[in-house]
Structures are given as C-alpha cells and as structure tokens.
C-alpha cells in the first residue's frame, strides 16, 4: 500500500516534469522562437547526445574538479564547523569572517586565484571549495548547538571531556544538519567550478559553454547547462540516499506519517 502510493507520487512528479518540457517544446514551435534565442528541449537533448563524445572529457573534468573541491570543502567545513560549534571564542572570531567571506561574489575571487595558481584546475577546485563551504560550517555549528544541556551534564558528571562529548553526542546530533548542508553544498560546488572554468580554463563544461556562446552555438551552450543540471540532480540524489541511510533516526516522523 505504502510502496504503491509512493511510486504513484513519483510517477505524478515525473509526469509534471515531462509536461513542463513539452510545454517548452510546444511554445518554441508555436511562437517560432529562433534556436539562437531559446532552443527546443528536443534539440538540446539531441545536441547533448550527438556531441557527447566531444563533451565527455569536459564533463569528466568538471565533475572531477567539483568533487575534489566539494570533498575538501566537506572536510574543512566539518572541522571548522565543529571548532566553531564548541568554542565560543572561535565562534565569535570565525563567524563575522565567514559571513564576510561568503558575501564576496566568487566571480571576484577567481581572478585572484588565477593570479596565484595560474589558470586551470587549481583555481576551479578552490572556487568550488570556497563556494560550498559556508552552508556546511553553519549547519554543523548549528547542529552542535542543539545538544541538550542535560545530556552534556550527564556526560560531564561521568567525567567525559569535551572531545568525548563532541564525539558521542555533538557530532551524531549534528549529522542531519551536516547532510542537509551537503545536498546544498554539492550544487554550490558545481556553480563554483563552472564559474572558474568560464573565466580561466581550457577544459570543462564552463569553457565549452563560453566557446559555444561566443560562436552562437546556443543549443550546445544549453546542452552544457543540461549536462550540469543532470550532474547536479544525480549527486543531490546520491547524498539524499546517504543521508537517509546515515541519519534515518532524524526522519522517523515522516516514516511514521506514511505508515
């Protein structure tokens, strides 16, 4: 009963998404929109398919860069979040800095990274890292702050030190927040990578799109966009599954509601 209703909901959602593309397609045909302005979805998908051999190395490049930046961002973000979450001084010091840094448009930072490290993969990784780190830090710190004071007292009375409290209660308690932030962070990491690639790189989807638009190959540019969107959705889904596996305890209420 529950499975069929769930798959029914999924089917409905998929139907609406297909319908959205269909409306786009029909509107383009109906209003005779030039493919240089807005290509039809069918043209985009066929371009994506036909150009795949040429696009593939760029997709791999972007994916790899994003994953490296994201992984570094996750590790550093988790550590920083834990640090900020347990120490008041660290919180007071790091928070304004973090907010300030995250307010800077990353477009403005890329040239500096290029100046330091030359064009190519390194600035792209760094841009991905700096774009995705903020939500991770904030969420981990917030998650740590949700530890019940009573639980902390129980552990301290037992003689637990700070690290033991963090390890046994703080971090597990922060995990739902952490994984929620990873879903946001992975999509932001893509934004960072492509941003850097459009400014200074000779490989990657960002580069392809820059070249495509400058030669008015709009369907190819859109194919690049679609490739990015598909990657984003796929990785989001991966982290959603991991989240459910690792912190199912945090979602119990939804499951009960469905039962």
């Amino acid at each position, binding site marked *: 009963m529950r499975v069929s209703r769930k798959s029914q909901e999924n089917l409905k959602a998929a139907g609406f998404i297909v319908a959205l593309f269909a409306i786009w397609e029909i509107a383009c045909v109906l209003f005779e929109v030039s493919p240089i302005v807005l290509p039809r979805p069918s043209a985009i998908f066929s371009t994506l398919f036909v150009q795949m051999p040429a696009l593939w190395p760029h997709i791999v490049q972007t994916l790899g860069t994003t994953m490296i930046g994201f992984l570094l961002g996750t590790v550093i973000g988790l550590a920083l979040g834990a640090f900020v979450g347990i120490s008041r001084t660290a919180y007071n010091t790091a928070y304004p800095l973090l907010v300030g840094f995250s307010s800077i448009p990353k477009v403005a930072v890329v040239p500096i990274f290029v100046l330091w490290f030359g064009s190519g993969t390194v600035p792209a990784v760094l841009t991905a890292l700096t774009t995705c780190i903020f939500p991770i830090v904030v969420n981990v710190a917030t998650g740590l702050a949700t530890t019940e004071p009573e639980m902390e007292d129980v552990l301290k009375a037992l*003689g637990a030190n700070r690290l033991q409290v963090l390890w046994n209660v703080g971090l597990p308690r922060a995990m739902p927040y952490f994984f929620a932030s990873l879903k946001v962070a992975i999509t932001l990491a893509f934004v960072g990578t492509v941003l850097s690639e459009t400014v200074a790189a000779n490989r990657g989807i960002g580069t392809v799109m820059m070249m495509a638009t400058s030669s008015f190959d709009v369907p190819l540019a859109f194919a690049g966009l679609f490739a990015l969107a598909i990657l984003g959705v796929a990785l989001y889904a991966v982290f959603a599954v991991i989240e459910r596996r690792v912190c199912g305890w945090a979602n*119990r209420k939804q499951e009960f509601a469905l039962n």
Partner: protein
Amino acid sequence: MTATNDLATHQTKRIAQLEDVQVRFGQGDDTFLALDRTNLVVNSGDFVAMVGPSGCGKSTILKLVAGLLRPTEGVVFVAGREVGAEHVGIGMAFQNPTMLPWLTIRQNIMLPLKIVKPYADTFRRDKHTAFRDRADALLAKVGLTGFGDRRPWELSGGMLQRANLCRALIHSPQLLMLDEPFGALDQFTREELWAVLQDLWIETKPTVFLVTHDLREAAFLASRILVMSARPGRVTEDRQVEFARPRTLETTFEAEFTDLTNDLRRMIFAARQSKEMTT
C-alpha cells in the same frame, strides 16, 4: 596512628561535604545569591531528598556535588577530595530522559561504560558480551526486558525514564544525582517508579541526591530530607526518615507518613510566605 589517619577513618563514611559554600549567579552589579553559606555532610549510602520552593537552590547543590558548577566561595568535597580533582563517575538523571535517538535503548544505557574507567578501557571488547548482559540485567530490573533493541522514540515517557535510571546506574556509581526524574510523569507511573528506584537503591546502596517537588516522593524514597528556603537558598530543616524498607504504597497511607508530608508542606509554605514578604 597519626591524626590525619584518624581523621580519615572517621571520614570513611563521608561521601560528600559542602564547607561554607556560597553560590552567586550573574555578572557585575546584576548578581544574586543562589545558595547562601551552606554546610552539609552526606554519608555514604544516604538517600537525600531536597525539597523547597522553586528557585531555592536544590539543583544548585546537585550540580555542585556533580562538579558541574564551581562554588563562588567555600569548598565541595566528594569522596574525600575537592570536587573535580578526580572524576568519580557520577550517575545523573534529569526530568528530560535525553536518550540519544540514533542509538538503541541498550546502546544508550551502555554509554557511561564508554566513558567511565575502568569500563572504558575494555568497552570495545566487552560491549557485545559482558556489558551487554549487564545492560540487559538492569533493563530486566526496571521491567524493560526485550526493549534493549528498540529506539527511544518507540518508548513511552515512563519507559524512557526507566531506561534513564538504567543509564545513570549502569556503571555502579557511588553517587547518583536525580533532578526531578519523575516530574513529567503521571501519578501512577511515578509511584511505580518510586518502587523501582527503591529496589535499585537497596541493592547497591549508592548515595543519592534527589531533587523533587513531590513531598510524598521525598518521604517515600529518602532516608534524609533537606528542606530549603526560598532564594537565597539555605537548608532550614534536616530530617531523618526512619520508615522501614522496602516501603510500599501502603506506607504512604500511614499516619506518620502523612504527618511528615504535612510538616514538610507547612515548612515550604512558610518559606514561600517569607519570600513574598521580602520581595
């Protein structure tokens, strides 16, 4: 035998001692005295209940002995040493059972064994054998046989509080701190748990500090009741409770029992009155 040794033998039964302890909360000009100059000696195996109007510093005493709070003045001794000098692994339970939702009930109960020595040294090895059995034995005593593999959200409030007692006692602590553990439970569950707690206490005789608002609870469980005055908190009455153990619900209907609770009620009422007059 030297004088210090003499003193030591004399003090063997002392587990906790407050010496001229004062606690002041707040900062700068905006401070208030939470606990007035207090002297208190608690012997090993005592079951001390603390009652009094709210905000009278009952929980403050609890936190002082547990080492969670430093006195503004004076010294707190636990097990013959200044509190905090050496961790004695105090068991603690609050009104909020705070079972960790990502662990099973059994894993929750075994958590202190992961932290308190000497158990912590062999936790990895024993958690699937000896410690597991220990947790299950304790669960059986509080009437939760078979619930070890359940998750906290699958248990009722009363069951969680039973598990909470197990977690506080799993490492056989010398000192057990209970801060209104049954405050959120209905009358029937509460009375059931009084009996459960009494049985557990009789078995291993830890020293218990119980903070409660329920005078019947204090009279039922305690071997000694401290009545405290409103802020600044002071111990105004220190009374031994001599009813035979194990006490049952029948005990609570006896005349001496009701006399005791009425006495306590009168004293707390007087303490509240004097507070209203001063404010």
